[in-house]
């Protein structure tokens, strides 16, 4: 690893100052993604500001029935916290579907939001990659693109966002709280991650030096009925080929309200609003779920090796909705 200057932050404001003052400074939390990328030479920070001991790990109930998860809460702690388990089972399931116990013990919620793509061309400095080196070209478009995007991609980049947690957060309309040199702001989840467009080097709308302090989950009583389905090449310890977070409000055999988000298909956690429109007010049955799945993938475009993802995503949506919808009572 390339040597760097290290300091441990004891105050959020100081951490923000240290990183914003230096272009090649970075926060380090659990280190599970950043150290990995530093070893491969993809990330080459000159300064690391360790935020792991900032008092940002609390998980608390919000007055209106929501929950606040501190950015330094470890994935394993957040997954098993009673407030998360009871109010947002889809989020617990998404956490537990990600990585392994050891990594979840290290990984923070803030770091999970900021984790970078697992596109092998991004990880290999010998390959062309617009995300790593803007303007160099995308090796995946003409390369082996089995794990790549089918929705919202651009000719510049067809990488996918690898997080499981973020798919559940997209479905739950989470809000990301950040602290920057000019003060605090809130970013609605859908505006946090970006589509690649012409600037694939930018994964998110977080500005350099801004520190994520927490993620707020608004009250969503029907989230008790939710399901996270992850489809991957092996049963554990693998990123999603396709994943679905489904939250359904069903009564009297009808869908009253729905939230659907997809992972593994796009450069950002993908909120399937077309599917939600079809679901809302319709009968809670497989036919409805199929129509919703068709709508969610209607704009999909496959590359040479990932055509299968479109059908896989549709079937995963139907299965996740059927599970979340239960008997439809």
């Amino acid at each position: 690893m390339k040597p760097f200057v290290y300091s441990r932050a004891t105050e959020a404001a100081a951490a923000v100052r240290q990183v914003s003052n230096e272009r090649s400074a970075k926060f380090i939390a659990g280190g599970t993604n950043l150290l990995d990328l530093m070893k491969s030479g993809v990330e080459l920070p000159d300064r690391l500001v360790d935020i792991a001991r900032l008092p940002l790990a609390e998980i608390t109930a919000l007055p209106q029935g929501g929950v606040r998860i501190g950015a330094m809460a470890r994935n394993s702690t957040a997954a098993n916290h009673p407030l998360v388990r009871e109010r947002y089972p889809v989020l617990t399931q998404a956490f537990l579907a990600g990585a392994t116990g050891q990594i979840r013990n290290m990984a923070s919620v803030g770091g999970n939001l900021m984790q970078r793509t697992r596109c092998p061309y991004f990880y290999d400095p010998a390959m062309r990659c617009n995300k790593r080196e803007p303007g160099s070209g995308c090796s995946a478009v003409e390369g082996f693109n089995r794990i790549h995007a089918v929705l919202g991609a651009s000719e510049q980049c067809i990488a996918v966002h690898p997080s499981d947690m973020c798919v559940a957060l997209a479905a739950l309309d989470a809000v990301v709280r950040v602290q920057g040199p000019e003060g605090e702001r809130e970013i609605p989840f859908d505006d946090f991650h970006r589509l690649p467009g012409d600037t694939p080097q930018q994964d998110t709308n977080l500005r350099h030096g801004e520190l994520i302090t927490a993620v707020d989950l608004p009250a969503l009583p029907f989230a008790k009925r939710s399901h996270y389905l992850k489809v991957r090449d092996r049963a554990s310890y693998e990123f999603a080929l396709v994943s679905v977070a489904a939250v359904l409000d069903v009564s009297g055999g009808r869908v009253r309200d729905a939230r659907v988000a997809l992972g593994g298909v796009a450069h950002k956690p993908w909120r399937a609003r077309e599917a939600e429109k079809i679901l809302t007010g319709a009968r809670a049955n497989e036919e409805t779920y199929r129509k919703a799945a068709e709508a969610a993938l209607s704009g999909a475009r496959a590359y040479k090796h990932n055509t299968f993802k479109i059908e896989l995503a549709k079937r995963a949506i139907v299965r996740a909705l059927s599970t979340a919808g239960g008997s439809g009572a």
Partner: protein
Amino acid sequence: MNQITKQKAHIVFTLNGEPVEVAFAPHKTLLEVLREDMGLMGTKHGCELGECGTCAVLVDGRSILSCLMLGLDAEDRAVETIEGMATADGPHPLQETFADTGAAQCGYCTPGFLLVAKELLAHNANPSRDEIREALSGNLCRCTGYIKIYEAVELAAAKMRGEEMTLPKESVYGYK
């Protein structure tokens, strides 16, 4: 924390119950600090990418991957490595049952499995096979096929609860 330069860091932490002091290059991972600066070779160096689990150690009682943690992050924390698992009274029950069932063959993955299993049993004295499988899913073994490892954990858990448990004869190492 002591002053850290680009060349040298100097920290204090608890290793296997004893306070220790060590100086090392600040960009080193905990895995490298343990092996290269402290001469503790029990923690194994595998993929270095978080994918195999053989570098697992316990930090403040929780299993982590030492290849993805900076040595600096160990400061003031309690680290437990395989070297601390046996006590003056003898091997840990997990170490005994791993040997009895042949849950270790080449042994390269064993330190990681033992520490993660120890963490599991600290929270769950009577885990089901599925719970064991899930807890150990971050540890890869190329030799045993895992069944012996699951059996060894079940056997150790029973021992630690003070219960009798017998494995099928064919599971016991050396049975002909």
